[in-house]
């Protein structure tokens, strides 16, 4: 189908975009790369009266490293993330995850900020933000506010953004020397939305996790930072310890039923991912291939 009719304005600056959003509020939608918004509009899932196109705002582009923080501005495209030496060095989890986002033609247009603001629970990047402990920077009529990623995602396509606000950047902690990451997802076709996925960031000392953040996606209405990780930190991970964590993971998940998978299948796949993740990160092949729970 085609999008329904709307009025259109090409924002000339962030200030101008905020002025337009202040006027049109929830009647407006912000257009960046359009790779989530346009499908939703073409399917008539949403029919905004007004589109604020921020796609040409150079002030919202770029990746910057300063001290222990890497700032990725909202209009950074997926292809820019994949090509960035700063991301490869300082946030390799984000690089790996982005290679699973859709297909080349879509990665040439889609933006990090757009993906996060859209907040599809099956998409890779919100889960990365939660796993990395990112801070989302938002601009609005009252100025700037900083929202921890875990508080930013509030439901299916729902975020802490108000209709008058614009997501302008995210800040990620620079990966530590002793850190290791894991990313994997199960999808019917490479590049499709995942049935279940896991973005994990860890620090490992002497064969044990000293920190482990497990960001699961497509297992609920928002990315889930799994509490099960707590059972795996600062302990010698045995098959029994892992099995216990797997049971806890199964209990904390609330997967949805859709045409791709049942809740039971999603729960099982999440447990398989947990096992692969722990085994890979700790270089412990003996933890692979155990019953998932």
């Amino acid at each position, binding site marked *: 189908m085609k999008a329904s009719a709307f009025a*259109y304005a090409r924002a000339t600056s962030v200030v101008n975009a905020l002025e337009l959003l202040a006027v049109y509020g929830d009647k407006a939608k912000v257009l960046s790369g*359009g790779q989530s918004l346009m499908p939703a509009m073409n399917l008539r899932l949403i029919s905004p009266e007004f589109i604020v196109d921020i796609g040409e705002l150079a002030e919202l582009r770029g990746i910057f490293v300063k001290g222990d923080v890497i700032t990725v501005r909202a209009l950074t495209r997926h292809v820019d993330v994949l090509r960035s030496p700063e991301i490869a060095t300082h946030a390799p989890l984000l690089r790996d995850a982005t290679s699973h986002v859709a297909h*080349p033609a879509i990665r040439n*247009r889609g933006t990090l900020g757009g993906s996060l603001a859209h907040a599809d629970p099956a998409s890779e990047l919100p889960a990365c933000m939660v796993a990395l402990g990112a801070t989302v920077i938002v601009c609005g009529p009252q100025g700037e506010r900083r929202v921890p990623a875990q508080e930013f995602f509030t439901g299916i396509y729902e975020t802490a953004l108000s209709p008058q606000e614009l997501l302008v950047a995210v800040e990620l902690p620079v990966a530590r020397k002793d850190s290791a990451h894991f990313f994997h997802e199960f999808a019917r076709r490479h590049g499709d939305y995942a049935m279940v996925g896991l973005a994990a960031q860890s620090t490992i000392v002497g064969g044990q996790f000293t920190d482990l953040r497990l960001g699961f996606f497509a297992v609920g209405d928002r990315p889930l930072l799994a509490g099960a990780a707590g059972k795996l930190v600062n302990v010698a991970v045995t098959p029994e310890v892992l099995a216990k964590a797997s049971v806890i993971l199964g209990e904390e998940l609330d997967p949805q039923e859709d045409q791709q998978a049942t809740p039971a299948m999603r729960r099982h796949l999440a447990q398989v991912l947990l096992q692969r993740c722990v085994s890979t990160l700790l270089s412990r092949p003996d933890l692979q291939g155990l019953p998932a729970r």
Partner: protein
Amino acid sequence: MTPVPIFLEVNGERIDTHVLPRLNLADFLREHLKLTGTHVGCEHGVCGACTVRLNGEIVRSCLILAVQAHEGSVETIEGLSDSGEIADLQAAFRDRNALQCGFCTPAMLMAAQDLLKQNPEPDREEIREHLSGNYCRCTGYQAIIDAIETTARLRAERAP
């Protein structure tokens, strides 16, 4: 909803016109410019049939508004075909029967040429991955991958 003025280049030709904001680039190319080699399949970014180049990069023209192509440079299959840029790729598709109904073919050629420009000697897995966003309902893909592989090899042999 008033028309918005845009100017852009399409296959090297400058276009000055007005379009409604809701018009997507695929429909602009097909309906306004009669460039019907760009196909419209799913209209939500899944099938890949509408793939064109915008400022040198492949994009989904069903997921871009014509107003977003303002000041941009668009190349369609007509442009790539007429310039001879993909003549060898087209010949390889014909020779290997890498098309049947032809609906997906313009976009397959777009995606394949994009890959070969970035990676002149891709292996079959890399070809599959780069084409993963393009559906073909006739061929089963093997012949398409063969044709691209063959073109890559012939280009490498021809290169000085």
